[in-house]
């Protein structure tokens, strides 16, 4: 069962009415099939209309939807033969970032991404997708391994941000993020990143400093959460929607700003309404980007990635 977001209330009400009618129809000989079909058509149109003009703040909510597909769903639906590789060899295993060897339409790759968890137990296990230094250091280890064995790197970014906690600071959260970004930039193999949910600040950049950066249609990517910007810049928690608009956090805005290279379309009503369809579209888009980088020599790959970021902010 789909859980509805606040702004989907009219659709939720219509869906409830349809369910009610179905239940009534089942127990009687009334022919209300035509009525149900009419309402279903109306509901589909409302969903299409709503999702065609989501505000940046609404997109933020879709990007954080509790049923939105995550790394583990994409591993199941978009990749094959996944071999997870654990640990940073320095401190521990951080389940907020998962990585390993995988195949994408037959192509051998290294895939790394944030995992937020699906229910209370797994959310705690994955620390809600908020990685600690050991998560970033594991990512560095896997990127270096990929570089060594000539495997392209694919990352799936989905985090509210790196974990803000005492132990994370103690073990060098800032250094781990900086080194992970540096590792992305030093890769001797192609790297493609996709923001699949939330691209939360430094915790996202650390595994998103790629040759090509894609975003799912309703994902968001920002320097600080809209709530954080609201409390710091407006000095009130109530301006998150304004902050989301002002900061330009949507895939469409970021494509205009040339910060990302492409948008992967989501099914009507968002990725959570059709995880398999979303995964297919994501796999196709990643495959196209990797194919476009085939045959380029190492120096060219490194230089293109460097120039991509040097160009941001230059006149």
């Amino acid at each position, binding site marked *: 069962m789909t859980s509805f977001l606040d702004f989907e209330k009219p659709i939720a009400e219509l869906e409830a009415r349809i369910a009610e009618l179905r239940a009534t129809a089942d127990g009687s000989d009334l022919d209300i099939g035509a009525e149900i079909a009419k309402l279903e058509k109306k509901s589909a149109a409302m969903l299409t209309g709503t999702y065609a003009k989501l505000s940046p703040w609404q997109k933020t909510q879709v990007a954080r939807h509790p049923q939105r597909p995550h790394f583990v769903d994409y591993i199941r639906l978009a990749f094959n033969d996944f071999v997870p590789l654990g640990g940073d060899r320095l401190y521990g295993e951080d389940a907020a970032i998962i990585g390993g060897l995988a195949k994408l339409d037959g192509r051998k790759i290294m895939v790394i991404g944030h995992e937020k968890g699906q229910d209370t137990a797994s959310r705690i296990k994955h620390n809600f997708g908020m990685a600690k230094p050991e998560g970033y250091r594991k990512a560095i280890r896997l990127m270096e391994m990929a570089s060594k064995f000539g495997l392209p790197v694919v990352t799936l970014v989905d985090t509210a941000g790196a974990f803000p906690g005492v132990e994370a600071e103690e073990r060098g959260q800032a250094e781990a993020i900086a080194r992970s970004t540096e590792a992305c930039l030093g890769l001797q193999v192609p790297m493609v990143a996709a923001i699949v949910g939330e691209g939360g600040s430094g915790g996202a950049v650390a595994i998103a400093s790629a040759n090509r950066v894609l975003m799912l249609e309703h994902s968001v990517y920002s320097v600080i959460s809209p709530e954080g910007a609201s409390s*710091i810049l407006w000095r009130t928690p109530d301006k998150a929607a304004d902050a989301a608009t002002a900061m330009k956090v949507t895939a469409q805005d970021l494509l205009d700003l040339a910060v990302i290279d492409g948008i992967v379309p989501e099914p009507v009503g968002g990725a959570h309404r059709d995880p398999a369809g979303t995964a297919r579209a994501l796999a196709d888009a990643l495959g196209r980007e990797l194919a476009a980088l085939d045959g380029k020599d190492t120096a060219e790959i490194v230089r293109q990635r*460097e120039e991509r970021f040097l160009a941001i902010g230059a006149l």
Partner: protein
Amino acid sequence: MQTGPFNEIGTHHMSWLSKVRNSLSSLAKRDTPDNLWMKCPSCSQMLFAKDFEANLSVCPHCQHHGRIGAEARFDLLLDAGYTVLSTPKVPENPLGFRDTKKYSDRLRAARASNPYPDALTNALGTIEGMKAVLGVQDFKFMGGSMGMAVGEAFVAGVERAIAEKCGYVICTAAGGARMQEGILSLMQMPKTTVATRRLAAAGLPYIVILTDPTTGGVTASYAMLGDVQIAEPGALIGFAGQRVIQDTIREKLPDGFQRAEYLYDHGMVDMVVHRKDLKTTLATLLGYLNRKEVA
């Protein structure tokens, strides 16, 4: 060996500053009056503002290191005769951002009260005779925050160091990324890291001096990538803000949390160095790390 870098710099500082100030009557009025008292923000001792400034803005009682700007840093760390490099131009207010005020108005106000056009300024000079480019972030300019101008200045400073075949030294100070530039400020993290990688590829030293405060995206990029990491005593250095951490863990933060000495104890910096010793420390390090004498 010259007299302590201290006295010499003090003299240099006074000579050109007073020259400029005397030629501008309005500025001369803003010169710190002899009788102005201030309270040390750390130990609350009353100090003569003049004495505090003459002591490199370090409290003589508790050694609290006050925040200082780019000019004072250049005078402190570079030999006399350095050249301040021009700050590269970047698109202004690229998102047309406004919160309670327009970002372009905030920028204008910051420029009116600061000597340089944005939060990071570079100078080319020598440190005890050894050539270096020194970048300084000024917390007074919008909290030292990293936007496109800071990123571009950092890259320009590093490129100049590569062209001059000398090291790059950066004094960091920032609350983090400049939120008013949204994602474009975040993208300065990889951008500046491209520069540090190029400096490393050229075999040139990169030395970071972490000053109070250095937090957020600045810490999580170029501020943590130095060949040598130096911190000023007591400087707040971290990734996440203390309030955010407090809200996450809902317990008291450890004593000295995210202070320079705490970072040293946790292996994140090579040394904690008193402001008066920074210049000789830099000179010693550059002496070891520079491949050949450059002057």
